Structures are given as structure tokens and as C-alpha cells.
């Protein structure tokens, strides 16, 4: 029965391998999420949390651009998050693998004299992680030197851990150990402790290393912790084995789980631990289990050579020859599969597989790798993905594919926008002149009404100040007063004297008195009513003004709905097309890189298998010869024994009893041995 390592376990292995290069925290917490004051900033965070970092950067870029373009940016709601936004945008860029831009954004915060010390220290740590993720451990350490006291304990732990990783990358193991020793116990996670154990081991401090790795090797819990325990046990066992301490290595290798991601390597080394102790029979147990597993696994392939070797050491050459023959066949089959995979990659099927579900977030893509159907182009993909360079190239390739699709979609959008603009132009162009003419007429009328209103208001104010009742007289009253005045003037011009004239003058005066009396007594009432009328007029005028403004805005909006777009859209069409061409070319370049890298790795495996096959064939022939030779020797020994017995019988028997010339054919010897 063949045993293939479940894809889920291979994924754990992949994640474990990628652990050390995952620069940013796995679960990001952005600075502005608490007490949100700006909805669009919240939207940028929403995109970032759902791992659409492109959308997050665009949203924040747009927000920051609008914010900086304001006359009074301090009144904008983004002002509450400005510092966080400028910090977070660097983080988004880092996660979108825009290291150059992220570096510049973070540098700005680090250099800023106004940034709070805590924000600045976080920026320093981020900058160091950025350098480390780019493989520049030296600059990561220099960046960490820029941290300033006081340091938040959690941040200090993270900084020491990163320092240790960088020191290990540079081979400065004492510094790495010293850095890891600074991390608080509760913050020293299992992976960091594993690194500490490995560093101690490499420094030759075996006793300390064994203590640390032994503790890691006893970890329990989730699959990743269990896998790390296996890894620690395997490392420890391997190192002890290399040091010639096979007996001490055995308990650690026995702890490696039989169905974990390191099970095959564990079985292989467990066999060697027994073999190195001279106990080849014991070595048969793990190696027999190992050779029943997936022949694509390198440990299994080496197990296929190790198992017959053990049989040969036990002198069971026939069985050894048989197993070498099986190994040759297994290597041939695997070489054929590798050839198929290489050909599929060269045919461009790997690049298609890498774009499966291209819209998915990166973490989702990694998870879905395990569900890919077994096909030549993807058979070794998970193992290839364990390399940081390959992972980075895949991420770039998928980013480029998304960018290309985005550019295509936006190019289509621009065409639609241009169409919309032209339709609006066609709709508004014949209508707007008439709208404009009527607007101008209404505007002129409104201006004239406003002038008259202002005149009335002035007169009213004057009447109030001078207490001039006549100013509030109605048209009829003024007419009466004017008529009475004309009558008096006519009377005086005629020089009227006498009682009739006096009576007339008296009547005129009385009538004037009546009107004047009414004007005087009603002055306050009339003034109040006049002001109320003026207020009503003002309200009407305000409504008219509002309408005018709305019409003005609508008119402007109508113009703005089609004016000023043609040039930018035309330019964008060209830019989008040029960018799409570049994206496509870069995709091809990145795909070729991936294919070359994949083929190189698979070719190395193929060469190794070809080498194994040669060795297996040689060992097969040798074992076969030895089996034959052993058989012949056994037959010869039996023959000699028979002859000796016959001679004794002849010596003891009376003459003439001896059987004449009886010989047995060779090959009738011990059949305990397996025959080739």
C-alpha cells in the first residue's frame, strides 16, 4: 500500500517553512480602527482587513489627496486619523509588497520629529521587518538600533526576536542567542525557542540545546505546534546522529509522529540511528514502513535504497537484490512523472494553475493549494512553494495578473465614462442656451425686485427715524392730502375772503386734520405692519434666491457633467493601455522565472533520481552476485559435507558397499534466503 502525505500536512510544512520570512504580524491591527472619526478611513481599513490591500491603498490615497487639497484641512474629519492614516498606508504598502514606497512612508514617520515615540518605535520595527523580508539582515539590524526608550514591552520582545532572526541569517549565533535570551519568557514563542535551540546547537552548546529542543519536542496542541515539535525532535536526532551518538538520537527520533509532515524524514533517520548502532534488524522496521509511502518524497526515495542496504548488511542478499530491483522501478516511474511535470510546466500549464482563483486573497490561495487536483503541473507545487524566492515570485505573478485584469476593467470603464460624457453633452448642448436665456431674464427681474425692496426698506427706516407719518400713508390718503392741498392753494390764489371762503378753508383744514390725525395715531401700527410686509417680501425674495441658486448649481452641474473630462479620459486611455502592456510583459517575465525555477528544482530532483537508479542498479547486480555466490558457496559446502560423510561411510563400510559416484546437483542448499 502506498502512503501519500496528506496535502493538509504538506501545507503545515509549507507554513512552517514560511514562518521565519513572514515579516509583518499575521493578524494586523491598524492604528486608527478605534474611535473612528472618518468613514472613508474606516473603509480603507475594511479593505485592508479583508486583504485587498490595493483597494485599501487607493481609498487612503484618495482620502489623503482630498484632505490635503482642502482650504481648511483641520476641519476635515480625517484630521483625527491623519497620523494613523500616514502610518497605516505604509503598512498597507508593505503588505502589498511595495517595499520601496512602504520604506519611504515608514522612513518619513521615523524621521518625523512630531510623531509620538510609540508610533515612531513601531515604524522603526516595521522598517526593520521590511529590510529583513527583503533579505537585508544587516540593514534590519541598523534599523533596530534606531529604537528609542521607552519601549513598550511587547514591541521590545518583537524587536529582540527580529534581531535574533537577522543575527541568525548573518551567522552571528552568539548575538542571536543573546537577543533571544532578552525576550520575556511568555513572549518567547515556540518558534523562537526552536531557533534558540538550533543556534545553541550550532554554537556547540549541546547540553543547553538539548534542553531547549527537548522541551519543544514535547509540545502538544494544534497541528503547527505538533509539526514544530516534530521538527525539533528531528533536528535534535539528526545532530546527535551526526555526532556519532546514535543511541542518544533514537528517543528523539522515536518521538517524531508517524503521520506528521516530518514523518518520512523521521523514519529514515530512525532507521539510520539503529543501523549506526549496528542493529540492522531494528533498522528494517522504520525503513519498511517508509518504503510503503509516497515515492515522490525524497526521504522515501532514499529509504528505497536504505532498506535493501540493511538486508544486505544482514546477509540476506536475495531480498536485498529484490528490493533494489523495486527501487529501480520506483525511481524510473518517478523520473517519468518528473519528466511529465517538467513538460507540463514548459507547456505553460504551471502559470495557468498559479492563476487559479486569482481574485482570492493570498492566504486563501495558500489554503487552496492543498485542494488542487493531482496534475503534472501542480504535483510538486506545494514543495516548490516552501522556498521564499518561489513564494515571492508567485505573489508577484498573481499581483500582476490582478493588476492586468484591473487595468483592462478600468480601460472599459473609461470607454463607458467617455460614452456617458458624450451622451450628456448631446442632451444638454441644445437645451442649455435656452435655460441660460431664461435664467438671465429671471435673474434680471430678481435683481430689480431686490433694488425696489431696498428702496422701500430705506424709506421705512427713514420714516421710523424721522417719525414721518406721511411716509406710511396709503395711496388714497396721499391722494386726499394732495387734493386738499390743491384746494387750499386754489382758495388762496383766488384771494377768497368772506364767510364762505373761511368755511371752505376750515373744512379743508378739518379734513387734513382727520387724515393727519389718522396717520399720526396709526403710525406705530402702520410701521409694524410695514416691517412685517417687508419681512414677508424678504422671505419671498429668499425663496426666489434659493431657486436661483439651485438653478445656477444645476446649470453649472450640467456643464460640469460633460465639460473637462475629454482630455483626462483620453490621456488615461493611453496610460492604461501602456500600463496593461507593461503588466503583460512583466507577467510573462515573472512566469518564465517561475517556470525556470520550477524546472531547475525538478531537474535537480530528476538528476538525483537518475543517480540513485544507477546506484541501485549497481547494488542490485552486486547483491545478485553475492546471493548467487552465497548460494554456490552453500551448495559447495553441502557437497563437501556429503563427500566427507561418504568418505567416512566408505572408510567404515566393508569393501564393495560403497555407492558408486553419487552426487547431488547444486542449488539444493538452504532456501531460507530470498532468491533474486
Amino acid at each position, binding site marked *: 500500500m502506498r502512503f501519500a502525505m496528506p496535502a493538509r500536512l504538506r501545507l503545515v510544512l509549507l507554513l512552517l517553512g514560511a514562518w521565519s520570512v513572514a515579516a509583518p504580524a499575521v493578524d494586523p491591527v491598524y492604528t486608527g*480602527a478605534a474611535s*473612528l472619526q472618518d*468613514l472613508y478611513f*474606516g*473603509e480603507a*481599513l*475594511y479593505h*485592508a482587513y*479583508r486583504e485587498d490591500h*490595493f483597494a485599501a*491603498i*487607493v481609498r487612503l490615497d*484618495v482620502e489623503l*489627496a482630498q484632505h490635503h487639497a482642502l482650504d481648511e484641512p483641520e476641519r476635515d474629519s480625517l484630521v483625527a486619523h491623519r497620523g494613523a492614516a500616514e502610518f497605516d498606508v505604509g503598512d498597507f504598502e508593505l503588505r502589498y*509588497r*511595495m*517595499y*520601496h*514606497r512602504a520604506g519611504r512612508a515608514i522612513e518619513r514617520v521615523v524621521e518625523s520629529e512630531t510623531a509620538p515615540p510609540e508610533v515612531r518605535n513601531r515604524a522603526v520595527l516595521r522598517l526593520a521587518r521590511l529590510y529583513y523580508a527583503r*533579505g537585508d539582515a544587516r540593514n534590519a539590524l541598523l534599523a533596530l538600533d534606531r529604537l528609542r526608550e521607552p519601549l513598550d514591552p511587547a514591541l521590545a520582545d518583537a524587536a529582540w526576536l527580529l534581531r535574533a532572526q537577522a543575527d541568525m541569517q548573518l551567522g552571528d549565533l552568539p548575538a542571536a542567542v543573546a537577543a533571544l535570551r532578552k525576550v520575556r519568557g511568555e513572549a518567547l514563542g515556540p518558534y523562537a525557542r526552536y531557533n534558540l535551540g538550533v543556534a545553541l546547537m550550532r554554537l556547540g552548546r549541546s547540553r543547553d540545546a538539548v534542553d531547549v529542543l527537548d522541551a519543544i519536542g514535547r509540545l502538544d496542541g494544534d497541528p503547527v505546534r505538533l509539526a514544530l515539535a516534530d521538527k525539533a525532535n528531528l533536528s535534535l536526532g*539528526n545532530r546527535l*546522529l551526526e555526532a556519532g551518538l546514535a543511541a542518544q538520537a533514537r528517543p528523539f527520533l522515536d518521538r517524531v509522529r508517524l503521520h506528521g509532515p516530518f514523518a518520512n524524514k523521521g523514519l*529514515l*533517520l530512525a532507521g539510520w540511528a539503529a543501523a549506526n548502532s549496528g542493529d540492522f534488524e531494528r533498522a528494517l522496521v522504520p525503513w519498511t514502513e517508509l518504503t510503503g509511502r509516497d515515492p515522490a518524497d*525524497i526521504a522515501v526515495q*532514499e529509504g528505497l*535504497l536504505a532498506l535493501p*542496504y540493511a538486508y*544486505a548488511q544482514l546477509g540476506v542478499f536475495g531480498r536485498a537484490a529484490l528490493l533494489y530491483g523495486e527501487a529501480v522501478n520506483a525511481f524510473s516511474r518517478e523520473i517519468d512523472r518528473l519528466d511529465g511535470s517538467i513538460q507540463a510546466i514548459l507547456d505553460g500549464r504551471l502559470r495557468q494553475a498559479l492563476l487559479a482563483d486569482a481574485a482570492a*486573497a493570498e492566504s*486563501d490561495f495558500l489554503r487552496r493549494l492543498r485542494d488542487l487536483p493531482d496534475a503534472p503541473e501542480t504535483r510538486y507545487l506545494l514543495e516548490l512553494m516552501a522556498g521564499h*524566492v518561489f513564494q*515571492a*515570485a508567485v505573489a*508577484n505573478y498573481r*499581483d*500582476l495578473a490582478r493588476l492586468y485584469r*484591473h487595468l483592462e476593467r*478600468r480601460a472599459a*470603464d473609461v470607454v463607458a*465614462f467617455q460614452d456617458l460624457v458624450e451622451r450628456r453633452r448631446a442632451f444638454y448642448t441644445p437645451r442649455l442656451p435656452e435655460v441660460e436665456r431664461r435664467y438671465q431674464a429671471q435673474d434680471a427681474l430678481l435683481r430689480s425686485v431686490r433694488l425696489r425692496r431696498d428702496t422701500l426698506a430705506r424709506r421705512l427706516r427713514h420714516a421710523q427715524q424721522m417719525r414721518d407719518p406721511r411716509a406710511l400713508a396709503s395711496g388714497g390718503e396721499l391722494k386726499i392730502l394732495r387734493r386738499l392741498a390743491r384746494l387750499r392753494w386754489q382758495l388762496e390764489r383766488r384771494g377768497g375772503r368772506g364767510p364762505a371762503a373761511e368755511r371752505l378753508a376750515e373744512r379743508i383744514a378739518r379734513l387734513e386734520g382727520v387724515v393727519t390725525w389718522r396717520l399720526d395715531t396709526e403710525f406705530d401700527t402702520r410701521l409694524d405692519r410695514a416691517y412685517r410686509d417687508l419681512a414677508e417680501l424678504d422671505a419671498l425674495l429668499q425663496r426666489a434666491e434659493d431657486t436661483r441658486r439651485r438653478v445656477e*448649481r444645476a446649470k453649472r*452641474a450640467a456643464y*460640469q*457633467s460633460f465639460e473637462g473630462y475629454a482630455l*483626462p479620459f483620453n490621456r488615461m486611455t493611453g*496610460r492604461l493601455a501602456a*500600463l496593461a502592456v*507593461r*503588466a503583460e510583459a*512583466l507577467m510573462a*517575465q515573472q512566469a518564465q*522565472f517561475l517556470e525556470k*525555477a520550477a524546472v531547475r*528544482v525538478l531537474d*535537480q530532483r530528476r538528476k538525483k533520481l537518475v543517480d540513485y537508479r544507477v*546506484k541501485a542498479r549497481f*547494488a542490485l547486480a552486486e547483491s545478485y552476485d*553475492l546471493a548467487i*555466490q552465497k548460494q554456490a558457496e552453500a551448495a559447495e559446502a553441502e557437497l563437501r559435507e556429503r563427500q566427507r560423510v561418504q568418505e567416512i561411510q566408505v572408510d567404515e563400510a566393508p569393501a564393495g558397499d560403497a555407492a558408486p559416484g553419487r552426487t547431488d546437483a547444486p542449488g539444493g542448499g538452504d532456501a531460507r534466503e530470498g532468491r533474486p
Partner: protein
Amino acid sequence: MDCRLGLASAALRCLASGLVVCCALAGRPAAAQDAVSELQGIDDQVQALKQEVLDIERELSLLEEKLLFPSGTQVAVFVSLADAEGFELDAVELAIDGAQAAAHLYAYREFDALRRGGVQRLHVANLPAGRHRLAVAVRGRDRSGGAIEARAEHVLEKGDKPAFVELRLRPAGGGVDIDFREW
């Protein structure tokens, strides 16, 4: 016999015992360095391209918003979660003046983004000045997987400026409160 076997087996043993280290290191420092250099060359170009795409996207987004949603008529509706304890959001539906405007089904990653403080822009529309009725329906599940449904209405007095309405969902008493906040 042993002598003959010794030559082959020593080679095999050496080969097999070194396998773990060989597999891990794959013995390719020069090739690896070349690959890193080549990748960095491509990576620099990819980063430059991303920068240019972001630049054009920013310009295009601004133009698009100006073209499609002029500030005088723009109404944007956002969704946020005040607290997600014991609540899982499945869907939000929005109707404006009786007509369905938006319906969104939440994937886990989207719900998680809301839970962690993100704000989702659910809908952007153009509405004339005046009164508009927003009707919201929220569906989700409680801790035990039981269905939760809540409905709420809000009257928006739309003026001449853009209107931003936040639907803040707050699990409470086995249901969900929907708070409307105009920004």
C-alpha cells in the same frame, strides 16, 4: 564478500545519511543568489508598475466620483459593527424610497473586517434634495446558530451637500439594534 559489498554500501550509506541536510539546503548557493538577483530585478519593475497603477487609479477614482456622484446629489450608506460578540452577520439589505438599492451577503473575511473596525461602503446613489426614506433589513446568526433578523427605517433630509449615513449594527438582547448616524 564483505569487501565488495563495502564499496557500494559505503557510497549508499554516505548518500542516505546526508539526505536530510542535502534536502534542506539543496546545495545551490550560487544558483539561489542568481535567482534572488533576477527576482529582485523583476520585483523592482513590479513595484514601479504598482505605483503607476495606484497613481492612475487615484486620479480615475476622483474623476469617477465627480462624474457619477456629484457632491450635490451624492448619498453614501456605510455599514459598521459596534460589537460582534455572539453575533455573525449574514446579509444587509437597503431600500431607498421603497425601491431596493443594495443587498450584500457577507463572506467570513468581510464580516471579520467589520468586526475588527472596518467600515463597508454599502451603497452610493444620487438623490435630489428633500426627504428620503431608508429601510434596512439585517440578517445574521446568534451564538447558537439561531437566525436573527432586524429591520429599521430612517428619514434622511437631503440637502444640497453630500449625505453620508452610517448603519451601525449592535447586537443586543438576542437581536440587533440598527443605529442610523448622519455624518
